[in-house]
């Protein structure tokens, strides 16, 4: 199968079913270069799953996933590793290697995947840490960092290989509103400056509208809305409207176990 080169990522009728649950049920999405696509949805709706499918960590039950011209699920292990080096990922809880300091965490992909000298690596690490405002924290261990700092180190690590795509899993999770805004601004400035496409999975509305150039909403394993942030607020779908308003009245909680809490 070939992939139109004007999309950085394309999902075609992707399904993913676990024995107990069908997480994705025919998801189709195309991400254009320099897009900041925010995927929204409730917890457990499949946002992180889509990011892991793009990385090839999960395999779809059906459908196709392309990153540039590569069909992710058909790549050999060695090729998949090469393709992953072009994708950066920022995890919800940062996933920094707890036994390595900040410098070593950011330097890891360069040390393992390139033939650069230590001096070159140090220079790149310094540059990326400068970008996220942590140039003076190189020797700190992850346990000594605050939540916001960890996110920023994770972002520097994702940027260090100059990727074509960065995936963010709940970038504002666990952060206070001010730090959350700082991270959002950082995402916008760094993706614009580095001219990189990004996909962000989040359920934080403020953050989503701040970052997005495009927004998609997942509900019951399907994309029920896909529009620019300006158009998104006007979508006449009760699920989208309830999600945007955060109301307990509406279709989202119908038949859900969470509905009990509202009674």
């Amino acid at each position, binding site marked *: 199968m070939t992939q139109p080169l004007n999309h950085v990522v394309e999902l075609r009728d992707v399904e993913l079913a676990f024995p107990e649950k069908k997480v994705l049920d025919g998801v189709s999405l195309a991400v254009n270069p320099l897009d900041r696509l925010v995927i929204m949805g409730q917890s457990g709706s499949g946002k992180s799953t889509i990011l892991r499918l793009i990385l090839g*960590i999960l395999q779809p039950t059906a459908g196709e996933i392309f990153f540039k011209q590569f069909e992710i699920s058909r790549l050999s*292990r060695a090729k998949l590793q090469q393709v992953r080096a072009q994708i950066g990922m920022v995890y919800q*809880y940062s996933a920094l290697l707890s036994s390595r300091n900040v410098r070593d965490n950011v330097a*890891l992909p360069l040390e393992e995947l390139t033939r650069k000298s230590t001096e070159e690596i140090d220079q790149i690490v310094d540059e990326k840490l400068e970008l996220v405002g942590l140039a003076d924290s190189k020797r700190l261990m992850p346990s000594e960092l605050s939540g916001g700092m960890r996110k920023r180190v994770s972002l520097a690590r994702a940027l260090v290989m100059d990727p074509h795509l960065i995936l963010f899993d709940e970038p504002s999770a666990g952060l206070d509103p001010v730090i959350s805004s700082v991270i959002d601004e950082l995402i916008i400035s760094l993706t614009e400056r580095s001219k990189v496409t990004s996909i962000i999975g989040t359920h934080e509305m403020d953050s989503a509208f701040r970052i997005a150039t495009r927004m998609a909403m997942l509900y019951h394993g399907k994309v029920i809305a896909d529009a620019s942030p300006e158009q998104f607020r006007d979508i006449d779908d009760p699920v989208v409207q309830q999600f945007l308003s955060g109301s307990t009245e509406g279709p989202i909680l119908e038949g859900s176990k969470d509905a009990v809490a509202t009674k």
Partner: protein
Amino acid sequence: MAANEAEGARTAEGIVHAPADLVAGVGEKSRSLLVEVGSMFWFIVNTIGETLDRMRRGRVPFRAASFFRYTERAGVGSVPLVAMVSFFLGLTMALLTGYQLERFGTERLVPGLVAIAFTRELGPLLTGIMLAARIGASFTAELGTMQVSEEVEAIEAMGIGPLRFLVAPRMLALFALMPCLSVVSSIAAIFASALISRAYFNIAFVYFQDLVLQSLLMRDIVTGVLKSFMFGALIGAIACYRGLTVRGGAAGVGTSTTSSVVTAITTVIAFDTLFNIVYIVFFP
């Protein structure tokens, strides 16, 4: 009345089905054991494959510093424990066998007995058991914690092979260090036996040395070293496999660590028995 009859029918049905349930239970256990053995085999194959892949591309599979960090932890750090336990065991063995043999006036067999037993059998086995408990548990807990905190997935997501990066240096460190520790164990036990022989059985150190050299064959030493290599690789593979397959948070790490130690010790003993049978049958 009706309730009693129903209860009776259920008991009778239970008795009738008991043999079938037993067979089904054994079958299920055997099946899961085979699946586990198969998964572990492919885990080792994939680790070797990923490492060779990297070497074919002209890159070192992992950093020397990382390998030496594990050899220091597994090897140098284990010397006091292995030496001390082996020393005490050598002491006990020399004492117990010496007092029995003294009744027949053959206490001069003690040096050879301890030397052969430790070089060929007890040295590698004891070291294997101690390393499974000390290092295997630590590898499993470390990798398990990395697994539950998404660190392993992050490494994979960067395009770095986690088997090559995390498992290969650990396995190789245990593979390389195990024979050295096994030699330390044998030397400590023989030394303890020399002390006992001198103190209780009037065997001078020089005579003790002669007796050991007379009784010990090169074949005993080679057998012990060969076994040690295999034990090291097995313990490393089991510990890393259990660590990377942890599920269920902190409790999962605990369960996997226990399981890693139990599996490694059982496997080392089973493999030792198998090795002895094959060795004695085919190379008598």
